[in-house]
């Protein structure tokens, strides 16, 4: 099973997984390995304190890209289940931003798939972070990821 969720409210990734596992994995005896990543908002970035953040996204395309990323990984690594939860909107320091969890028969596949989903998500899923500094000023976080299209001729 694949689940993708964008949410505008804070969540506890571990409680989320406990609930998901209780629903989906009751008595799951074939997935020997689960690999999980949780990305959390820090209160500093590029040398500055950050008091809060706004996470913009492209409704429709964001879900579509996440669906594709996860479906590709499920196919490539023959995953049993995969879950991605990503925050949007106003976020405060210490709040989780992203949860990626995958279940597989073997640990190598689980680790590889979880890391791959995170890397591709960071480089292609349409999200943009806008930070608020202690003096009230705001700035967009620079993307430092490779472009997805060829340079213009």
């Amino acid at each position, binding site marked *: 099973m694949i689940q993708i969720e964008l949410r505008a409210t804070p969540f506890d990734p571990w409680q989320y997984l406990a609930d998901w596992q209780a629903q989906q994995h009751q008595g799951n005896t074939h997935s020997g390995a689960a690999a999980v990543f949780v990305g959390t908002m820090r209160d500093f970035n590029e040398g500055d304190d950050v008091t809060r953040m706004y996470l913009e996204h492209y409704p429709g395309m964001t879900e579509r890209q996440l669906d594709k990323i996860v479906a590709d990984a499920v196919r490539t690594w023959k995953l049993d289940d995969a879950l991605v939860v990503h925050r949007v909107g106003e976020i405060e320091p210490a709040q989780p931003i992203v949860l990626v969890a995958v279940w597989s028969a073997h640990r190598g596949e689980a680790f590889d798939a979880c890391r791959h989903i995170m890397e591709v998500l960071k480089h292609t899923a349409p*999200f943009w972070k806008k930070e608020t500094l202690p003096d009230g000023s705001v700035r967009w976080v620079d993307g430092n990821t490779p472009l997805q299209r060829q340079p213009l001729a």
Partner: protein
Amino acid sequence: MSVKVLFFASLRERLGHGQVTLDIAEPLSVQEVWQRSSGEETLPANVLVSVNQDYADAATLVQLDDEVAFFPPVTGG
């Protein structure tokens, strides 16, 4: 017939608008959609583009009723 053009994040703020509807009579390249919707000549190298919510490039042909979006490098995760 028209094309819906969206702009996101710092690009939306720089251009001062988040959505433009272009009336077009025939398919246009992404590059032409950029010129007509942004008023700027060349699509900057650090602007990403999607057509119907899939990544595209400046040469991609935009059909009537397509949805085109321009946005800066992504910073999620």
